[in-house]
């Protein structure tokens, strides 16, 4: 007989091992999936995980993409992870990301064609503020009326998408764009362009912000009383209340921070890699960031690594489309499976497998 026995404390070893195990299981099952699709499995795995970094022909292009794609994922996931630690399920980061980009871009475009150095910082601030404000909606509704933040934040993603389609063909449309939807191209406006900081590395201000967020989150969660209160609220809500931690403040802080970071990520993306606000500039980073947060065990350093890995699968997925004619959607499935296997193997972190009948205690 196989049984599970609860560990007195989560196993530290398994906390580190499970993500790696999950990646291997995903590779195996993903390989089977590729074989079913009639593609060479080993080759496909190699194209996804190895070639983006080391292929002699494509790597020069795809290596910088690693940071470009990891930047927003890490930035958003850091914000989400802090909320998840407190048991606050903000799954609407995609909406906060979109609204942040719209607000930041709107503030910038209001000053077009100024070349002031203050333009870009102002846009970043406006973007973060926009994301923050969008996240405040579920925060206020949760604290004031007890409304479920999962459903509200997710509904707001669909609202944000409608707003995005509306402004990209209305308010923010490029007046010189021959009537095509989409804002002015920020790549052609130096003051607002989130350019590569070091050539051919993919390093832009969004990536810098992501690294700062990793360090900041680490300090917050391990050194600051707020981080302690957040963890306490997540693990023992009653104890937290007795200790005088205000649940309302935690909700506002966690949702606000996540919105802030997601909004800034949206602005960095719109002014950098995407280049303009269009109806489809958002690439679903807000949802993938949920996987990144879990894969990184809600720990800042883990999220940094998980973000890089997830970015790798994005680029590898594109390469696999190009080289093996693999459907683009298979990589989305691949990423989803990764989360599934992680959650499945996570049982060993909290439980111990026991064989045979239970003896006397």
């Amino acid at each position: 007989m196989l049984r599970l026995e609860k560990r007195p404390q989560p196993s530290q070893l398994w906390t580190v091992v499970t993500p790696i195990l999950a990646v291997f299981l995903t590779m195996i099952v993903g390989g089977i999936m590729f074989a079913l699709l009639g593609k060479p499995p080993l080759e496909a795995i190699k194209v996804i995980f190895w070639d983006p970094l080391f292929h002699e022909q494509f790597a020069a292009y795809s290596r910088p993409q690693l940071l470009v794609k990891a930047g927003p994922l890490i930035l958003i996931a850091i914000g989400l992870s802090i909320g998840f630690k407190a048991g606050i399920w903000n799954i609407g980061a995609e909406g906060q990301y979109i609204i942040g980009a719209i607000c930041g871009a709107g503030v910038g475009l209001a000053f077009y064609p100024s070349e002031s150095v203050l333009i870009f910082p102002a846009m970043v601030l406006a973007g973060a503020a926009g994301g923050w404000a969008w996240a405040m909606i579920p925060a206020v509704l949760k604290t004031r009326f007890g409304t479920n933040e999962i459903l509200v934040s997710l509904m707001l993603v669909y609202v944000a998408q409608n707003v995005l389609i509306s402004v990209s063909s209305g308010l923010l449309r490029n007046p010189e764009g021959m009537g095509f939807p989409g804002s002015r191209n920020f790549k052609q406006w130096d003051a607002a362009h989130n350019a590569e900081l070091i050539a051919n590395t993919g390093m832009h201000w969004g990536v810098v912000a992501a690294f700062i967020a990793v360090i900041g989150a680490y300090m917050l969660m391990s050194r600051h009383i707020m981080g302690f209160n957040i963890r306490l609220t997540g693990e023992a809500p009653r104890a937290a209340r007795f200790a005088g931690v205000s649940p309302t403040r935690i909700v506002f802080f966690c949702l606000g921070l996540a919105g802030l970071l997601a909004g800034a990520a949206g602005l960095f993306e719109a002014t950098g890699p995407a280049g303009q606000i269009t109806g489809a500039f958002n690439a679903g980073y807000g949802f993938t960031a949920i996987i990144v947060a879990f894969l990184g065990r809600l720990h800042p350093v883990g999220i940094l690594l998980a973000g890089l890995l997830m970015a790798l699968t994005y680029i590898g997925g594109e390469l696999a489309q190009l080289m093996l004619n693999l459907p683009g959607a298979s990589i989305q499935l691949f990423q989803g499976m990764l989360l599934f296997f992680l959650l499945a193997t996570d049982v060993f972190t909290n439980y111990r497998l026991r064989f045979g009948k239970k003896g006397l205690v």
Partner: protein
Amino acid sequence: MDLSSINPVLLIASVMVSATPILLAAIGEMVVEKSGVLNLGVEGMMITGAVVGFAVAVSATSPGLGFVAAAIAGALLSLAFGLLTQYLLSNQVATGLGLTLVGLGLSSLIGKPYEGMKTPTLSKFEIPLLSDLPILGDMLFSHDVMVYFSLLLVAAVWAFLKYTRAGLILRAVGEGHDSAHALGYKVTQIRILAILFGGACAGLGGAYLSLVRVPQWTEGMTAGAGWIALAIVVFASWRAGRVAVGAYLFGGVTVLQLNLQAAGADVPVALLSASPYLITILVLVIISARGVHGAPASLGRPFHASH
């Protein structure tokens, strides 16, 4: 704006059609939540049902087979959720989200070859006598069989939960899993069955979207319908009758905003398109402001029998 172009008979009839997918998914999820499990993967199961139902209906030129296949696909996907949350004790919220992400990826992978195809139509089932009524006949009694099936299902779930012993056990498991376990009920197995039922219903709802409502396959076509179904369960305070009311109200809003768009109403299109989601939020706020009544006490809590 020309409101006279909106025909009330067609309006009510299309409300019933647009409410059916959400009703199916919501009634399934209600049973799952009654057993104490929160499955946030409704959207993923719905869209998988939509694509599998469509693919099978096209290949077999039979919409009926499509619905059966969709229910099986939804149930299989929900089984993955069930194994993870019930046997491997994973976090239900995270697993549900993962299920949605997997479902979205899986569906666009399966659906690629079927884009732009047409499906055989589900024939109308005109209820004898009733469908001959002057206006009501066209409005209420000349729909396809799935519309009536969804309403019968609501009635069946209501009767099951209220009058049968099995329904009582299901509710007991959802209200207090430790007590139910102590009484000798197999909490995990009962929950797995409820999860399978919820998955099958979500699959049917998805297939109704791709086979009747739209009817074709496009990537991401559920567009949040699964999440709205989850919201309707909360709105309904976990009662079958109110689930039907909620789904029909929501169907009404969807159809009305589409009609207003078509009639050229003087309201921004973005606001109209976003209105179903905004109204869902509004309804959730109103319900929660009154205090949530009727949430199963063990909802979302993991169960591990330590002895």
